[in-house]
């Protein structure tokens, strides 16, 4: 029974991945040119996809949570981990032109730079982190630790008082981006 449940979980993971990959490719965000175009602030496709996913998912997940149907899983963070790791990731993101998810999509559409360079590099980089982890954990990752707090918890507000303004701000930026013709 346990192993059946485990296989079912894996099949669900695979199916969610198939739909995710399909959507990423149809959105054009598995293309190097589109991702680097975003980082050069010339093509806002990546931002449009991310912001509309966040608006939809944010409203949906908080609705489901209010109904008691899902639990949140916010990741813990710290300045040493989220900010420093984020900057390292960002430099790699621009050099590679894909990220961890879109690179898998790029492989699916035939991008050889993604398969040979990117996946190989990504696996090596993850391995390097596992090797450095004990030392980093002690010296860097705990600096400026703020745990797995969410903005409604930090502000002490009902989640909808954060969800609604955040959705409106993102919508406003999307309208502005469209008006600028980006």
């Amino acid at each position, binding site marked *: 029974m346990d192993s059946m449940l485990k296989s079912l979980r894996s099949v669900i993971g695979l199916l969610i991945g198939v739909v995710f990959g399909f959507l990423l490719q149809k959105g054009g965000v598995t293309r190097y040119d589109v991702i680097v175009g975003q980082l050069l602030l010339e093509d806002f496709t990546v931002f449009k996809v991310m912001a509309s996913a966040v608006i939809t*998912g944010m409203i949906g997940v908080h609705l489901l949570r209010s109904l008691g149907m899902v639990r949140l899983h916010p990741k813990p963070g710290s300045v040493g981990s989220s900010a420093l790791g984020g900057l390292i990731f960002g430099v790699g993101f621009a050099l590679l032109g894909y990220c961890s998810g879109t690179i*898998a999509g790029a492989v699916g*559409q035939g991008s050889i730079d993604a398969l040979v360079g990117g996946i190989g590099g990504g696996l090596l980089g993850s391995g390097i982190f596992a090797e450095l982890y004990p030392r980093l954990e002690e010296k860097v990752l705990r600096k400026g630790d703020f745990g797995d707090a969410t903005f409604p918890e930090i502000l002490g507000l009902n989640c909808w008082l954060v969800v609604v303004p955040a959705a409106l701000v993102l919508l406003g930026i999307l309208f502005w981006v469209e008006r600028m013709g980006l």
Partner: protein
Amino acid sequence: MLEYLKMDLWSPYVVGAGIGVLNLFAFLLSDKPIGCSTAYSRTSGMIEKLFRGSKVDEKAYYRKFEPVIDWEVMLVAGIVIGAFLSASISGEFRLETVPALWAERFGTDPLLRIAVAFLGGVLVGLGARWAGGCTSGHGISGTLQLAASSWLAVICFFIGGITTAMILFRAGI
């Protein structure tokens, strides 16, 4: 319906809303947010085990994230299949080593492109594990939960990315 599936590109808003709804399914069916970078760490551990055996399991990081095939690895495998389906249906599947934008700036040498992609990949793999997530885990799934860690991480992804891209493509070499 078929015509729509055959299109090269969909509106980014349709795609984004679809990814948002897909995240809800991940929460409902798997009690997990969508995230991709853990899969690389697990796979990297599995490869290391081929060479160094089971002592790899004793590494502190792999005690936290066991190097086995699980939900996240299946998710990333699914992305390859899904993107392949999408690109095949629309006739957009093509083998390409040097993207057009890269070629315009740095020429068409495939080795240079692959070397830089490899270096970028190392930093993406390292940075994603360092930050505890990537563009999907922090950038979409974490920000939509309004997690402070994810908003800080995604802002830093783009600060690092925009700065590097501007230096690469706009500096007067």
